[in-house]
């Protein structure tokens, strides 16, 4: 346990002043603008929004700047701000089938209605650092291609579901759990797990997802579909008596098709994992869908043997703000605690020495 300490105000003030200086860096170099951060480091901003659990690109860009690019610090800042906001209400569930698609790929079918659209992806790049990144060369405008006549992009899951080859979306009209309002009870339902995963640490979930692929709770997954794009946020307006769209947000959705099971007497069917994340972040959405599927072990009568299947382990450790708080608090003054440990250790050693001495004397 750490204890309160007094003093140090002057040093703390100077440390913060020094931090502000180092954050700003060389004054001869122009300061970063929020437009630059939100526009050119947009995936960092997206990650901060997703794990900060607040969709607001400007605020997330401010947090990235304030934190000197330390994204977990930025996430912490956004979470702290979030707690100051009154909650006006809940949106209607977003409808990802009506997304304006910016990217859509499937690893299960090469020909899907609506087609595959690569969008702005790192896939198929050579991962060689581009010398042009050291300069400010003109960047060509993207090519434009007339869009096809209102071609619909049905969800790949619906194609499989039409044949009865995959478990359908479960239905429920109950009010979803909210971990920002109520303490978590175990076992947790899937709605609560999805909320926790959606704001969970990308690195932690990535590693857990990876562990399931390597045999720790294997799920044998295929990417049914990943889609990135803009969806409407619709809110009921009690003042007006109807719902309106208040704007659009960018999200990433991953539908993972997993090992087939025959658990509900419907014959063997593929099972599913689901990932949904603020912003463009398919690594996170994919990791989330792997972990979501692993955490459904009980539903499919699977033995919980691996960390990714242990919901208390996953949910209690996936939040990087909680994790960083507890790990980093270790550097705060623990003088009294440590003093007690020291005293105890000295006592033990003294007793040890006395025992050895008396034994020697006896011999």
């Amino acid at each position: 346990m750490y204890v309160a300490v007094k003093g140090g105000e002057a040093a703390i003030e100077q440390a913060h002043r020094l931090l502000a200086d180092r954050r700003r860096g060389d004054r001869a170099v122009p300061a970063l603008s929020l437009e630059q951060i939100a526009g050119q480091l947009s995936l960092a901003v997206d990650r901060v929004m997703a794990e900060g659990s607040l969709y607001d690109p400007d605020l997330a860009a401010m947090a990235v700047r304030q934190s000197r690019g330390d994204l977990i610090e930025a996430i912490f800042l956004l979470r702290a701000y979030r707690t100051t906001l009154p909650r006006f209400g809940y949106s209607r569930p977003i409808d990802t089938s009506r997304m304006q698609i910016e990217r859509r790929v499937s690893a299960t079918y090469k020909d899907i209605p609506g087609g595959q659209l690569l969008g702005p992806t790192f896939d198929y790049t050579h991962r060689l650092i581009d010398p042009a990144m050291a300069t400010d060369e003109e960047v060509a405008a993207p090519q434009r291609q007339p869009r096809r006549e209102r071609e619909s992009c049905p969800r790949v899951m619906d194609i499989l579901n039409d044949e009865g080859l995959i478990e359908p979306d479960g239905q429920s009209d109950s009010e979803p759990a909210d971990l920002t309002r109520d303490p978590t009870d175990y076992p947790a339902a899937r709605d609560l797990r999805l909320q926790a995963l959606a704001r969970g640490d990308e690195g932690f979930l990535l590693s857990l997802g990876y562990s399931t692929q390597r045999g720790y709770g294997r799920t044998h997954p295929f990417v049914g579909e990943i889609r990135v794009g803009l969806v409407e946020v619709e809110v009921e307006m009690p003042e007006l008596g109807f719902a309106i769209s208040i704007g659009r947000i960018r999200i990433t959705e991953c539908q993972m098709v997993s090992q087939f099971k025959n658990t509900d007497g419907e014959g063997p069917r593929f099972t599913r994992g689901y990932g949904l994340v603020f912003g463009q972040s398919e690594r996170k959405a994919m990791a989330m869908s792997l972990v979501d599927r692993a955490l459904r072990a009980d539903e499919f009568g699977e033995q919980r043997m691996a960390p990714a299947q242990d919901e208390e382990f996953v949910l209690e450790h996936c939040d990087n703000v909680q994790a960083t708080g507890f790990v980093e608090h270790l550097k705060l003054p623990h003088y009294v605690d440590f003093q007690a440990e020291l005293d105890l250790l000295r006592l033990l050693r003294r007793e040890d020495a006395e025992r050895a001495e008396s034994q020697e004397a006896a011999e």
Partner: protein
Amino acid sequence: MNTEQQTADRRRALEAMAAMPAARLAERYARLAEVAPASLPVRGPEIGAVMVRGRAGGGGAAFNLGEASVTRATVKLAGGEIGHAVVLGRDGEKARMVAHLDALRQLPEWVQRIDDEIVIPARQLQNDAECRLAEETEATRVNFFTLVRGED
């Protein structure tokens, strides 16, 4: 015009204005506000959050995905017409402008002008942005070919 139609029009106007970039809205609003009846604040503009929900599997049970910052405002005209606005983001002035326009739109003599000068251009901007995004995305459409492996 029946009330159902009016409600639908009001909703569409609110949605178009909410989607309009604040700077573009402000330009057009300024011209209108010079001559329009003024409004009094009733509530806000007030910044808060809306919990955005998703559905497990895309179509299943709802879950809480995360919050989004929003701003709401309510204003009143001298004649008692109340205007409401909720917009994504933290732009109080934008919410106030939308609420004022929503109130003005309840005065029959203002409907046409607001629709012509703000709602229709807002929808046009939105369509252009959507079209551009769709066309840029379309250029990345891919056809994968499966190669037969040489084992047979």
